[in-house]
């Protein structure tokens, strides 16, 4: 399975990104890591060029909302039927209620949303989701 990953927007928090890269490799995924400071269009383009199965975006600085709002528009421009869209990290600024954040990001077009959830818990869910698909 191929996964494109990276940190969205003008976000330079790199530590989680490295951990995600390593964890995914360990779980047997083929990883395309675009690193920090990546725009949504670049993520989508990377999914197209690699024919990836999963797009795993992380965001730590609280700006994800602004950078991911256009996901539906970009999804409509190409056939992404078989791609799983996932996002995690700190999706809101400060102490925001996950009960509001999760549906919001789902409405943007993400299949899996993890606000301040441990990485391994998130990756377990991803595997379960892919299995079920």
């Amino acid at each position: 399975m191929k996964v494109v990953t990276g940190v969205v927007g003008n976000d330079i928090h790199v530590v989680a990104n490295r951990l995600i890269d390593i964890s995914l490799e360990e779980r047997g995924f083929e990883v395309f890591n675009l690193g920090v400071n990546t725009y949504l269009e670049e993520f989508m383009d990377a999914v197209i060029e690699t024919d990836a199965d999963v797009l795993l975006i992380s965001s730590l600085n609280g700006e994800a909302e602004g950078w991911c709002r256009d996901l539906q528009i970009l999804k409509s421009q190409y056939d992404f039927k078989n791609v799983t869209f996932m996002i995690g990290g700190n999706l809101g600024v400060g102490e925001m209620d996950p009960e509001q954040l999760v549906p919001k990001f789902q409405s943007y077009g993400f299949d899996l949303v993890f606000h301040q959830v441990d990485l391994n818990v998130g990756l377990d869910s991803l595997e379960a989701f892919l299995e079920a698909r």
Partner: protein
Amino acid sequence: MSKLYIDIGSTYFKVSQKGNIEQYFRNFDKNILDDLNSKCSTIVNQYSKEDIHICSSANGGLSTLIVGLTNSFSLKYAINIAFNSGINIIDTVLYSKLESEPVPLEVIDVVIVVGGIDSVEKVFDEKLLNYLEKVNYQNITYVGSAKNRDFLIQNLENIVVLENIISDKLQIQEEALKHYLTDLYQSDIVGKEDIKQLYEITSNQIYSTPYIVNRSLPKINERLDVANPFIVVDIGGATTDIHYSRDLVNDNILTENGYDRLVFKKLGVYKSRESLVHTAKNNEFVFELLEYLNVTENILEEESTKATKTLMQLAIFLVLYKVSKHHGQYVELNLDILNSIVLTGGITKVLTQEEVEDIVLFFYKKILQFHHAPTTLLDSNYEIWTYGI
């Protein structure tokens, strides 16, 4: 034995031996070889064919059409390689928009098709063939996913298949395509009588000048007093080029020599003067700039030395403006950390150091809100190209 270097430009030719460079105005009534012989046959005759190296920007270069799968990878990588190979004219089409894009009317020297890492199947289909049927091209090359090669070979006559320019890790692989394009440039020259004759005096490959300038970049800070990171701005008669070090860019491309090139076809001072003036008039800062230079808008329509100077200053400003943040170029340079600007080309004959510094300072103060500007250096001897040949 020392070597003789010759650069054939659109207005001058330059002859360099033992570090000494002479320049001559081209006489357009004569063909290039006769012109060269009439001006410096004694020098040329002193050298054997093996010791004469020639580069040229006189034949305009190749025109390309790139069909790519995405903007961020296929098209971006191919554009990058094409510019670095000395190509000036680049048209691009996104594969997903192929059916709604107009077909270019002019003859294309080379079509480049690219998309997908090697393991990706079924990137291109009939849609590509239908489109290409309508395009009038001379050469075609495929530099995309390995799994699509058979389809293209079976359906497109004469297609040259090269190594994928997108690696399995989504990084750029430039060598094969760069080689192909520089060789094609060479055979294009051979088709052009004027330059073809130059093979009477050299047995070495004739390269395009921008390709040579790009090759010389790694040597510039050894030879000239400039500090990294720097850019080289080549403002000539036909186009304006920027060569920049990759330290100034924040993106996913990692090329081997670490320097890239960007071309502004429409910002030449002579051959594309009209579009330069047009771009200038549409820039919101230009009136302030003209005032700062103590001239009025009317100068843009005049034919005088003063007008040429002003146009060149405008060209510097516009080029910096276009590569600074958010102006839709395919690269954005981080000019905040730039240390030196080197100017080469015809501009060094027209503007003084002070006039250049003036404009650069205006840009840094006005657009970037800085108090100081990078140092500037004029390649007045026009020697940079000799480092790369």
